[in-house]
């Protein structure tokens, strides 16, 4: 209850001061180059990694990338770069 309130407050503050949401809210910042490359900053780990489907944990839940020949080009704490033929991106929001 408290956490949810804090989240809403931060959201409102961010909107009010036009602050970058990824910095303030620790939200993932996703950059997609065509359908070949995808850069996810502020991720919180890999849940599953298969050549057809990669699930990545983020602050707001889970980001699911589907495609073929998916490959983790590089993996850092907080940054993951994915190469391959990307066909779909899905955001699954956690209830929290």
């Amino acid at each position, binding site marked *: 209850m408290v956490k949810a309130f804090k989240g809403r407050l931060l959201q409102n503050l961010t909107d009010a001061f036009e602050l970058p949401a990824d910095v303030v809210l620790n939200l993932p910042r996703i950059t997609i180059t065509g359908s070949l490359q995808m850069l996810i900053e502020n991720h919180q780990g890999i849940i599953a990694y298969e050549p057809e489907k990669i699930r990545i944990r983020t602050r707001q839940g889970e980001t699911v990338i589907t495609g073929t020949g998916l*490959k983790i080009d590089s993996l850092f704490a907080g940054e993951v770069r994915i190469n391959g033929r990307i066909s779909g991106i899905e955001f699954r929001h956690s209830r929290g």
Partner: protein
Amino acid sequence: MLIRELWSYHRGYVIIKVKGTGLEEFLNRAAAKGIYLWDVERLSRELLIAKVSIADFRQLREAVRKVPVTVRIRQRVGLPFWRQKLSQRLVLLAGALLSLACIYVLSSIIWFVQIDGLERLDHDFVTGILQEAGVGPGAWRNSIDPREVEKYLLLRIPSLAWAGVRLRGTLVEVALVEKTEIPDDEQLPGDIVANRNALVTQIIPFAGTVLVKEGEAVTEGQVLIAGALDPHMPSPGDDSGRYLRAAGMVRGRVWYRGFGEASVVSRVSRRTGQSCTGSRLTAGRWSWQWGDVEPPFRQYEEEVETRGLVLPRFGWELPIRLETIRFFELVTETVEIDLETAKEAALRRSWEAIAAKMTPGAEILSQEVDVTTEEHSGEVLVRARRTVEVHEEIGVFRALPGETPEETWEGSR
């Protein structure tokens, strides 16, 4: 991405094979530890390949200790590994360095000298001069200054007009241009003299002192343009005066006389068709002869054919000769031609007599022909006298006696 490849190659990395059930767990833990993984490829459910730098790999074992995976090195890539391998093979390293040093040393030595542009100069002579200048196979490249070598060549070989020296790797290219030399006998001092008796009409002097005037009659051998700077010098051989090579054109009128005669009746010898043959074989001091060796005719013509034996292989002539002698009987006949034909023949002969003396291509100013017919002991003779006045070059160069090319003093300098 090329930059990343090069950088990681420089720093060294390993390709690892991760096997187990918690592959995602492995990735997350590694990432959480700040370990950089790249080119992560999942080959199957329980198998994953990734690349990790050497520095990170050491931390990797620590980081994934609790994860149910096994990490194996599949391949070591990069310079650090090469360095390590080489440090175990010092002889190989030394050999590589030695061969590099050899290439360096050998390529800083001159191997070849190429000389172009030789016409009259001798190749070996120029090679010798180049050796003196320190240019030759085996010389150090650095010790050669092309400009200095060019200067030296020009100093040592006076007949050079230009010299170019260029270093091209281990080759020295020497390009030479020889002076176009005036032949020695064209540099001798001397005079222009008349080569026949004439009346001077035109003098165009190029060098020297003109001694005659236009309209003057000159005799053969007379000096027309003197090479002496002071023409009143006591004697041409006197060293006190300088002599140069006189040059110029002198034209004059020259008269030629030609004479030709022809007889109306002419005697012609003709072969009768009778002939005989004799042979003589000579071997050293002995000789054999057969056939008609002595002529059986009162009037005859003789043809001798000599054949020697030569060994073609060695060019020796054996002292054996075979002579074949043929005699032809002759008969003299009197042929009469008409007067006009005889006149033409006389005129032609008189012209031929002049043409032999005249400069070819001389300009004919006038000519006179006088034809007479004479009765001479029963024979009729036609005589033609021809006088031709021509305008032609009469000056020729005559070198001073006793002059050698070294003592030449050229008027142009």
